[in-house]
């Protein structure tokens, strides 16, 4: 291996691609979005609740006047705190008339057997969406609880029974150290690391995508034959992987520094109470998985990129790898509930899904160390194997112009390269 030539290729790949508009947008737009979110939060945190209430008002029918037909006597007369939102009716027909006249949005008919069954008939106009909204409405629940317990328990208990949970999250590590406290703690211990993981995965694909593009471009423009007359295909491939790996790493470092900056600066900026740091393991392992994942995918993309007759064909061929790597994304809804589920663990040991899966799992929970070590080992072993196969495809594929080799031909190349 002539490392001087590898370096020349790496330098050119880096210098050419670092100026690409797509790369610059991707690198700097992410921190800008993050900064925007934090600044918005800092300046509007006081108004956020009001804004939220305003938005809820627009969609929640229970925010308008609600009619109540009470056959039990527990809910009338209506307590003063609820008189602006609830209107009593003697008869169901009166309430329905008011509903049709749009004087009220909903009618709650509380039957005589309410105490035994809990059944409440909800009458609305239009779709049944309104009835469903009533069951989730904190206002209606508070109305029911308050009236049921009025005069039977102390006001403080009555109030707590109406709103039993005001969640204050605090995240601790396995060593018992507090990593995040309060609502912003949740943002720093979960939201930002999770976003970072997603962006790291995107970095793997954008960098290895550049590699695919670079190989396909050289082949399509026919410059490749001059290049391989000067440098061995393995040296060319190594140069491209190093140059574009460094490019992706630049992107990752910009993102991480920005995230760390937000993490440190946010304490002052947002007056966050308590600790709020991004877990170090997400950073360190993030970089490790980025490097391993990128190298594996870049090597595969180089081999596949050399097979297509045109850029489009090469991208189609590479699609199979992207599809496999996207599997962890497809099950991410399930991962939220159980990041250490069997399927997640199995996919962490399969080389093509390991980097993506581990990056998505890391911010969600304490991943067992056996999974971390195992997935890294799988990747470390897979990379030389991929290199072996890709180098063979690369060497021969580069000189096949105008047609895409069949699967049979690809197999023949792997067995006996030119």
């Amino acid at each position: 291996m002539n490392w001087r030539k590898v370096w020349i290729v790496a330098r050119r790949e880096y210098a050419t691609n670092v100026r690409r508009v797509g790369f610059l947008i991707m690198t700097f737009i992410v921190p800008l979005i993050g900064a925007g979110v934090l600044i918005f939060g800092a300046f509007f945190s006081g108004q956020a609740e009001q804004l939220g209430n305003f938005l809820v008002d627009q969609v929640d029918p229970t925010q308008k006047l609600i009619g109540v037909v009470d056959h039990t006597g527990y809910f009338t007369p209506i307590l003063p705190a609820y008189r602006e939102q609830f209107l009593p009716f003697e008869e169901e027909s009166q309430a329905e008339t008011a509903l049709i006249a749009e004087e009220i949005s909903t009618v709650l008919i509380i039957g005589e057997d309410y105490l035994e069954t809990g059944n409440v008939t909800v009458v609305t106009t239009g779709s049944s969406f309104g009835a469903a909204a009533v069951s989730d409405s904190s206002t209606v629940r508070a109305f029911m609880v308050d009236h049921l317990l009025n005069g039977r328990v102390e006001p403080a208990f009555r109030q707590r029974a109406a709103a039993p949970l005001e969640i204050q999250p605090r995240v601790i590590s396995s060593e018992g150290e507090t990593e995040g406290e309060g609502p912003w703690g949740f943002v720093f211990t979960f939201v930002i690391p999770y976003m970072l993981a997603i962006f790291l995965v995107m970095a793997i694909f954008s960098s290895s995508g550049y590699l695919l593009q670079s190989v396909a471009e050289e082949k399509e423009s026919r410059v490749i034959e001059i290049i391989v007359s000067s440098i061995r295909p393995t040296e060319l491939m190594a140069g491209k992987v190093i140059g574009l790996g460094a490019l992706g790493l630049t992107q990752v470092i910009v993102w991480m520094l920005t995230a760390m900056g937000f993490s440190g600066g946010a304490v002052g900026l947002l007056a966050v109470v308590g600790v709020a740091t991004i877990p170090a393991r997400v950073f360190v392992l993030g970089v490790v998985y980025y490097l391993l994942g990128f190298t594996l995918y870049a090597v595969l993309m180089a081999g596949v990129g050399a097979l297509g007759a045109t850029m489009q064909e090469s991208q189609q061929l590479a699609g199979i790898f992207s599809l496999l790597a996207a599997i962890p994304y497809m099950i991410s809804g399930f991962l939220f509930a159980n990041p250490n589920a069997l399927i997640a663990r199995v996919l962490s040991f399969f080389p093509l899904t390991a980097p993506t899966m581990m990056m998505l799992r890391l911010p969600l929970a304490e991943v067992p160390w056996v999974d971390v070590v195992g997935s890294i080992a799988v990747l470390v072993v897979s990379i030389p194997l991929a290199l072996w196969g890709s180098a063979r495809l690369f060497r021969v594929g580069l000189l096949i112009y105008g047609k895409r080799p069949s699967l049979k031909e690809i197999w023949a190349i792997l067995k006996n390269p030119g």
Partner: protein
Amino acid sequence: MVIQVQDLVKRYGDFTAVDHLSFEVHSGEIFGLLGPNGAGKTTTIRVIMDILTPDAGSVTVLGHSAGESKSLVGYLPEERGLYRNLKVIDTLVYLAELKGTSHAVARERAEMLLARVQLDEWATCKVKDLSQGMQQRLQFIASIVHDPQLVFLDEPFQGLDPINVERVKALIAEIHREGKTIVLSSHRMNLVEVLCDRVLLVHRGKSVLYGPLEEIKRMYAPNIIRVRADRIPPDLPGVTKIESDDGAFNLRLAESTAPDGVLRALLDHDVDIRAFEVAPAPLEDIFLTVVGEEEVRDELA
């Protein structure tokens, strides 16, 4: 000896592209590697350039194995192109650096060569901004920017208009005068034969004719003499056919007839002779004679 190829074999599956080919290229000569399309010329060059691995045989280039001599060899491939979005000067410097030339020397040579082919004003433009003819000249100097001792030119006239053919011919003559050894590969034999000192004619991967061009031409002289005169008597002894051609006459001789006997007969008939020469056979005609005309007519077309 600049190149020594011994018993070279290259197969693609069941197809044998190069079949036990042996030849040598001497220092400072223009060597023609000629033959119809698909004869195995490009495969032979790719093996010598270490782009392909041979199935059998050996290759020595400038005293080294094929892989070790890359930096000493220049290559203008048949399938050619350049980075369209790269600047002209950067393209040349990058290609020279890949051949082991230092950045400073690469830049100096690139500027000198650009001036030589009248592209110096375009140095900082992108390759895609150049016209087709300019790109072809740039491609040519890209193959010699690292100052190689040996240059392979594979189908150098492909896709060129007559003006650019002459330009490239002049460039080849120029680098030959500088002492570089040139291997010229082409299926257009008549176009390149005027440039070559020695040739190897290949057909279906095998050597058909090999040696100094003059010797081959002498060996396959077609027994035609070309006479420039006002008239040719119809009953000349030993002449089987007379054809008029652009103010001259081509006289086909019977096998045992010598040209000097015909000249004497013309003088005896008081023919006013302005020119008399033994007509050289075009290389392509010799090739067709050797391999059998019918067999290769399609391939040459």
